[in-house]
């Protein structure tokens, strides 16, 4: 009979956190930030089919870095949670705060239960409000804590460096093109400080646009529209981008 080694709880938790953090760091980073008309999600994603961003409900979007099968599971869980809640109560009763809470509880329980391996994911849940003041962005690290973010947030491998870059340059009321450019600049900085080019085909971009007439505010930005936003000079594009939005739908 073997005697189990004694591992102090501190050490056990630190090991689990280390494990989760390493898993998340392997994934590419992504950025979620506010702009004048809503919230934009930007990330580097070579795949067209496996999304990092998706719609949860009318005004709520989801972003995740880390292990695909784990965050995909959480995403579908979130969609089910939101749809069930909206069906039993009302569409207005589905909030990002409620969803973030459920995610935090789920991640937290998994993280601290010895029987399960911790999830190697970091999530962002964002809700677009009627006005920029009503926007909410929650970051959910692997251990089940919730961080209420303002302005901009980055998660994934290089998150700290990207966050500090964004914090210095992000300001309220940026146009979509400006916000997008800033996000791409931030993402293209490597850990060692060098910069590399991220082509438009490798970018995944989505917005929660409060000016959309439909009740579902989530929209992916792809193809020509993305190209044009990336090339455009921030100030000129405002009218153009909204015009194009209506054209797409």
């Amino acid at each position, binding site marked *: 009979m073997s005697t189990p080694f004694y591992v102090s709880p501190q050490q056990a938790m630190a090991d689990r956190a280390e494990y989760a953090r390493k898993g998340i760091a392997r994934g590419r980073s992504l950025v979620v930030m506010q702009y004048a008309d809503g919230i934009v999600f930007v990330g580097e994603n070579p795949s067209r089919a496996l999304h990092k961003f998706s719609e949860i409900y009318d005004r709520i979007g989801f972003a995740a870095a880390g292990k695909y099968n784990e965050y995909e599971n959480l995403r579908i869980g979130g969609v*089910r949670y939101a749809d069930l809640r909206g069906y039993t109560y009302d569409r207005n009763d589905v909030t990002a705060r409620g969803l973030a809470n459920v995610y935090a509880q789920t991640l937290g329980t998994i993280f601290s239960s010895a029987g399960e391996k911790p999830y190697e994911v970091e999530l962002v849940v964002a809700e677009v409000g009627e006005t920029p003041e009503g926007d909410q962005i929650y970051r959910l690290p692997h251990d089940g804590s919730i961080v209420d973010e303002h302005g901009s947030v980055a998660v994934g491998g290089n998150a700290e460096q990207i966050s500090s870059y964004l914090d210095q340059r992000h300001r309220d009321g940026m146009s979509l093109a400006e916000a997008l450019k800033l996000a791409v600049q931030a993402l293209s900085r490597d850990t060692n400080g060098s910069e590399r080019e991220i082509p438009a085909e490798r970018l995944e971009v989505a917005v929660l646009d409060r000016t959309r007439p439909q009740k579902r505010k989530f929209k992916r930005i792809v193809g020509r529209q993305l190209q044009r936003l990336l090339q455009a000079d921030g100030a000129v594009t405002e009218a153009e981008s909204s015009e194009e939005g209506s054209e797409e739908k």
Partner: protein
Amino acid sequence: MEPNPRSTGRLPAAFLTPGSSSFMEFLAEHRPDLLPGRRQLPPTQGALEAPHGTTIVAVTFPGGVVLAGDRRATMGNVIAQRDVEKVFPADEYSAVGIAGTAGIAVEMVKLFQLELEHFEKVEGTQLSLEGKANRLSTMIRSNLGMAMQGLAVVPLFAGYDLDRGQGRIFSYDVTGGRSEEYGYAATGSGSLFARGSLKKLYREDLTEADATTLVVQALYDAADDDSATGGPDVARRIYPIVTVITEDGFRRLTEDESSEIARSVVQQRMEQPDGPRAALR
């Protein structure tokens, strides 16, 4: 395992089980009590009095399809509601109009809308139009027990098929039987009269404006001969709901647009109460 997974506040296992993209299947697994078809009805003596919605009509035209409904709900010989809405968008490219027990129908539509939206969000792509029509079929079938007690729901489903590039109409019976209709279709108590009207006035080369007028004509004819169908109510400004689905998606005609069509139809009937005449040969 926790005896009650809800107590921790984390998502219950059913939420994180991969597999189904169907919200109804998820409900069946996790909250079967919320599914309309799972309810047990006590046996009742005679018919149960509940508001019933009446006539829905649909017409295809090159480039899309029009779905419209009158505004009356009846309960026996009483008008239960004058301004009830019976035509709903199912998603961006389809709509459903309901005849039958209003309460159950509205719940069914709500679940149907959610079923399509849920699939779209989980899978990242829309169901095909056939797929949507089949989902609705399943829902009607699950209501058969209630239908046999007089609480039937018989919808009309119309949508724009993006693959084929045309508008299509599907009609149903109480058992969930589904059939595709070509050109035009009607359901509900006034459907006999509406169908007669549509039959004589329908052409294959209708424009969108023609099609929206045609459905209002058909609803007028249904209201003319069926007491449970409401015609345009000029005094109260209650007009039929008219929706158009094209490549650009679902659109409900505004109050002004539908009132203009309805008023012109009423105006014409002042002179010619039976409406436009089809050529004899």
